[in-house]
């Protein structure tokens, strides 16, 4: 009796074990409308509330960000309402999206629509992606510079661009006013004078997120940029060995900036994470950080009254040298062998160009869309508005860190940290950058 009971128990346990194993893939895509504020972290899944009738189609969407999910859900609901029988199943994977997407591809659970950062990340998936090159009607709805970011050398277009993302030094306007800074610094010497003024006014000049290697690496790309070559040209030149770091016009200024940061940032700079960096800026505890306009929603949440603006990175001698780097945050890519190819294409186009979708991008996410269908709508935040001005004035250059290979931040970031700690000299850091780019060629 006892033994039979034990056998049954063991059997049940084994079955549960196997069942648990089998459903683990599905557990991330539970249904039900789940939404949260802007930019949540972690993996969460929401799927449309819609139709449960038979014979319906489920469109699987892998979303690598989770910005303004409430408004996003409205777009999806609208899409489902326009397409009876279609259910959109979205996985929002804001954290570790690369790993999750890779495991979904490896396990054969390939989403119909998936998002990637343009550049090295997206290139990994080009062989799976639908080529939009012949859909000229669709492509004409996007700015050509943005489409170019998802285009390879032979003209295949593997993804549709989402919104622009712009980065530079960001400063708190009130802090600058309090310190009596009226014109933006255009050289490192002027920046140093302004740091002194800020310090005299009792404000910590910098709060760079030194813990995050990606912040440091992104910051360094302003000094790599050769404006005559733009991002692609500079990276290609460095990788092929045609130019070296000694040829870069503004590279040495990077160490001037790092020296300023060493002098005027907190002693615990390598402990500052991106959240506290953004927080200190928004609340006026520190005047300058390096970040992009994607953080606008965070700033607004941290301090609704914060007045912020971009400070073009003063890499050279004049305002013309100063850099603001802008690119597209995400590419919407369609799986080319998807059974729902047309629907997936329609979905991308709907999300990126429809009135509802543009409303999500401008009002919800507070960003500048890469599509040109509803230019009457524009973002309201300080930084996206600022970046729109720079983009329209043609003063922006492309992003280097996204096309420099996926291990760029992890490789060079620690060397920058080492310089800030005094473990490495400027030459050590330069050599590490040089070796990184040579190894990519």
């Amino acid at each position, binding site marked *: 009796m006892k033994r039979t009971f034990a056998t049954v128990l063991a059997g049940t346990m084994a079955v549960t074990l*196997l069942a648990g*194993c089998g459903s683990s893939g599905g557990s991330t895509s539970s249904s039900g409308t789940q939404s949260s504020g802007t930019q949540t972290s972690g993996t969460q899944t929401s799927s449309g509330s819609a139709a449960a009738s038979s014979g319906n189609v489920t469109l699987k969407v892998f979303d690598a960000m989770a910005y303004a999910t409430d408004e996003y859900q409205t777009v999806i609901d609208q899409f489902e309402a326009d397409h009876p029988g279609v259910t959109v199943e979205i996985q929002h994977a804001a954290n570790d999206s*690369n790993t999750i997407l890779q495991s979904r591809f490896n396990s054969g659970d390939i989403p119909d629509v998936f998002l990637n950062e343009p550049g090295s990340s997206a290139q990994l998936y080009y062989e799976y992606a639908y080529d939009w090159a012949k859909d000229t009607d669709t492509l004409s709805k996007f700015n050509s510079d943005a489409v170019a970011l998802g285009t390879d050398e032979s003209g295949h277009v593997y993804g549709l661009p989402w919104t622009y993302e712009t980065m530079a030094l960001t400063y708190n306007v009130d802090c600058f006013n309090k310190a009596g800074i009226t014109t933006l610094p255009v050289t490192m010497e002027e920046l140093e004078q302004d740091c002194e003024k800020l310090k005299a006014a009792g404000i910590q000049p910098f709060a760079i997120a030194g*813990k995050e290697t990606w912040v440091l690496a992104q910051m360094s790309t302003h000094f790599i940029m050769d404006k005559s070559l733009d991002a692609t040209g500079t990276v290609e030149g460095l990788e092929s060995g045609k130019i070296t770091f000694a040829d870069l016009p503004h590279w040495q200024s990077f160490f001037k900036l790092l020296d300023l940061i060493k002098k005027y940032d907190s*002693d615990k*700079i390598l*402990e500052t994470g991106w959240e506290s960096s953004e927080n200190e800026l928004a609340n006026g505890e520190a005047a300058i950080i390096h970040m992009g306009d994607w953080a606008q929603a965070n700033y607004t949440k941290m301090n609704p009254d914060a007045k912020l603006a971009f400070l073009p990175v003063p890499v050279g001698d004049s305002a013309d040298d100063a850099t603001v780097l802008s690119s597209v945050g995400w590419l919407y890519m369609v799986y080319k062998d998807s059974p729902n190819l047309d629907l997936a294409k329609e979905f991308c186009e709907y999300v990126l160009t429809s009135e509802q979708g543009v409303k999500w991008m401008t009002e919800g996410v507070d960003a500048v869309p890469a599509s040109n269908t509803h230019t009457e709508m524009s973002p309201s935040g300080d930084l996206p508005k600022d970046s729109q001005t720079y983009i329209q004035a043609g003063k922006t250059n492309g992003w280097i860190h996204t096309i420099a290979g996926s291990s760029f931040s*992890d490789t060079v970031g620690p060397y920058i940290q080492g310089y800030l700690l005094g*473990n490495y000299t400027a030459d050590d850091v330069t050599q590490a950058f040089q070796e990184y780019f040579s190894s990519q060629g």
Partner: protein
Amino acid sequence: MDNEKKPVRVHSKKGKKRKETLMFIIFVVPALAFVLFATDIPFVMNIYYSVFDWNGISKNLTFVGLENFRKIFTSDKTYWTSWWFTLRFTFFYVIIVNAISLAIALALSKENRFAQVGRAFYYIPYIISLTAISLIWEFILGPAFDSLYESTGWSFFGMSWLGKPNLAFIVLVVITVWENVGFYMINYIAGIVSVPRDYMEAAKIDGANRWKAFWKVMFPLIMPSVSICFLTSLTFGFKLFDIIMVFTKGGPVNSTVSVAYNIYKEAFTNNHYGTATAKSLIFVAFILIVTGIQMRVTKKQEVEL
């Protein structure tokens, strides 16, 4: 009688065998299948991938032979620094966690109210989720230390604990010891309570002092606990990953990159899947050798009651 009994006995023998086979299938096969699918088959596939150049996503794998291994041994500095970190970490972790937990276990092995509360107290960190642990320590090292520094002025609280490589190393050892000490303590207590009291009393009567009684009588008898605790703490130290992932991300200046974290980064951030599998094979081989030696050494020390 005999004629009647014999076939029955044969039948029952057969039945017993059949029953045993059935038992084997019911009890062992599910577990075996699970281990096979989750561990052994992926391991074999690992060996296969380690000779390819593959980004982990593409359908095209390029055969490169032992090129991945050559690259690891000749030009991968970060991998070997991560080894150095992991070995240092394991060394300190194994010694400190075992010494502390054994001391606590000796103090709390008696059956009284104080000991019960004490055990719970030490066990709690072990059952807290890792995310909570990381939040707790971020708070301790951040705002808590800051305000202590302001009120006391002691430089101990003002140091950049997570911003300097050496200090971050100490912090990691402290956190992992604090987190796991309860687990090893329970193991040691289990060993200690199973030692018959008369052995210790006999030692006392023979004139052994407490120190001698512990080393000469108690310690050899709890050797099975020591052996299992050393094994688990060794493998924990080598495989250190999760706390790095949520807490330091390998920083500052790559000083806390463990081997497991380096392999993870190689596979999923750098998209060098082949290289990562090659690295993991080296890692597995090393762990097998070390734990093998360790088991041998401690098994020799074990004594039968």
